[in-house]
């Protein structure tokens, strides 16, 4: 009787274990993707391929230890080795619009990016594992990694660039026909002549700084453009101009620009290359040296034009203490308040970029300023549309809204 009971009990235990094992097996099988695809990674340098597979409805019930596994082989006949594990709730195609775009369907697909040698075909399978058991589907897919010439995910950026390019050409040609385009008055730039005149009357020098960055920065190039105008005035009025530089390349460019200004003014002999000199590449060594120069030379006018960092107030306050008239201009938003409080005039952001056109009064250059203005008008309209769509998105056609939203997404 005892033996019989033991046999029955063992049978029950075996049946329970079997049914549990079968349930696990069933769950893993449920997770096996119905569709698998492999493709070259778009917009890349040819270093990877993508394996994508459809999401299973059983994912919601899957225990934490269950993962998808991507297996790879050189040929379909060879043994497939696991190369990537992906959690059941991870790597949805919708998480990576750079590769898959913004389609709603992407929410139903998983992906794995696999780095493989270029121009060689590889074969892939997708399976499911719980750490001890791995089951794989029968479907085998293949793909080759190829380099892509065009980065299509930057298409939106390219469209805006072409638009700006077209506007530059358009306004350049319009300015040729109508040289009297209206440009609003910029007080800081109007004051340049006043500052140079003041220095001339006082018989003191002018100090000009081109900012924290080297000539490779667009703001430094803008600053050098303004320097050309200031140096030309200084040469006309025979006023000394001092340009302490933080970068040797910027120093060389400034020397060339100032020399040209003196030559154009008919006084090449009065140009002193030692007044445009390199000080130090280190931020606060440069600041301390310029502050010392201000205290010793007592310039009547200081120009701080370019991108500045923590040294902005240290320079502007030292200049303010010497009683100099100060004109600043920067595109670093954090430094604008410092210049506003410590300087007499301050060019805010884009005014620095507009300066060379404004000062030269060259109609074609002034015309191109309209490009940025047109861009701003377009941006304002789009911002307004965006605000309306966000406010009333329930009534707005969502596809159009999504299209506009995605167009301005940087990938």
């Amino acid at each position, binding site marked *: 009787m005892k033996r019989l009971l033991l046999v029955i009990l063992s049978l029950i235990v075996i049946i329970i274990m079997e049914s549990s094992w079968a349930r696990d097996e069933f769950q893993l099988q449920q997770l096996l993707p119905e569709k698998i695809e492999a493709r070259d990674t778009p917009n*890349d*340098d*040819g270093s990877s391929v993508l394996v994508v597979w459809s999401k299973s409805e059983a994912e919601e019930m899957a225990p934490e230890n269950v993962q998808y596994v991507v297996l790879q082989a050189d040929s379909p006949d060879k043994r497939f080795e696991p190369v990537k594990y992906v959690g059941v709730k991870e790597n949805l195609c919708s998480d990576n619009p750079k590769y898959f775009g913004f389609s709603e369907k992407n929410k139903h697909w998983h992906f794995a990016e696999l780095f493989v040698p270029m121009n060689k075909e590889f074969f892939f399978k997708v399976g499911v594992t719980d750490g001890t058991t791995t089951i794989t589907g029968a479907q085998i897919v293949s793909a080759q990694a190829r*380099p*892509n*010439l*065009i*980065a299509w995910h*930057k298409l939106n950026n*390219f469209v805006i660039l072409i638009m700006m*390019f077209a506007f*530059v050409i358009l306004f*350049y040609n319009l300015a040729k026909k109508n040289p009297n385009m209206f440009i609003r008055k910029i007080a800081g730039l109007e004051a340049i002549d006043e500052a140079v005149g003041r220095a001339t009357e006082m018989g003191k020098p002018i100090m000009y700084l081109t900012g924290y960055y080297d000539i*490779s920065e*667009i703001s430094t*190039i803008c600053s*050098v*453009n303004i320097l*050309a*105008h200031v140096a030309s005035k200084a040469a006309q009025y025979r006023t000394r101009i001092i340009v302490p530089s933080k970068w*040797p390349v910027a*120093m*060389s460019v400034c020397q*060339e*620009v100032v*020399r*040209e*200004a003196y030559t*154009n003014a008919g006084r090449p002999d009065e140009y002193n290359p*030692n007044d445009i*000199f*390199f*000080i130090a590449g*280190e*931020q*606060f*060594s440069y600041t301390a040296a310029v502050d*010392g120069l201000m205290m010793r030379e007592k310039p009547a006018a200081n120009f701080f034009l370019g991108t500045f960092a*923590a040294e902005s*107030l*240290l320079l*502007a*306050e030292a200049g303010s203490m010497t009683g100099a008239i100060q004109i600043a201009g920067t*595109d670093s*938003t954090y430094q*604008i308040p410092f210049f506003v*409080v410590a300087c007499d005039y301050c060019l805010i*952001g*884009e005014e620095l*970029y507009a300066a*060379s*056109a404004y000062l030269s009064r*060259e109609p*074609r250059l002034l015309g*191109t300023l309209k*490009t*940025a203005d047109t*861009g*701003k008008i377009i*941006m304002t309209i789009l911002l307004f549309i965006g605000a309306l769509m966000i406010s009333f998105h329930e009534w707005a056609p969502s596809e159009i809204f999504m299209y506009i939203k995605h167009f301005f997404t940087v990938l």
Partner: protein
Amino acid sequence: MEFWKKRIPLIIVFLAGLTMILTYYSSRKEAVEILTSYSKWYQIIAGFALLLGVVSLGQVHIAKIRKLKSGWAYSLIMIIAFLVMSISGFIWGIEKGTPFMWIFENVTTPLASTVFSILAFYIASAAYRAFRAKSFEASLMLAAAILVMVGRIPFGEMVSRLLPDSLYFLRIDVITQWLFRVPVAAAKRAILLGIGLSSVTMSLRIILGIERTYMGGE
């Protein structure tokens, strides 16, 4: 002369600018290699220019010492410091534990920190000038500044807690946050939008050769 001084640089600028634009829109490794080689060229040019900078530095300070101009002693200190740093760097290298690094860590860095710390006093004096309520705008700025300053210190938070939950929106820290998130962020974005568009326009002007002031002359 015009050809060498204007035309050739303009052609170089156009080709370089165009290459940079095209490589940005390409994913190929070659595009990245072109960008890297441009950056290497720039480093080589900057290396030569550094030599020019050092010559310029020497010329200015040696002339000052020779003529015993006012402040010549500072120039002498500069020349001595320059020589000491250069020689110690050349002889013992610049790694940790070398005389160069010792001077850098114990002289240069504390001096730089000292200059930076002066900023605290300069901010105080600049703030004093800026916050004098001379006009409506200045008064507005003063009020905003007081709110932000009080909202950022524990006292502000302590006082704010005295307000009932129904007046949550009047809490100083809430007002401070609102100031940062709404008016400040709006103004900053407007400035950044202008800067972004202007810098694209400026770049196109330079690439197309419409803007040539940086090459000297107007």
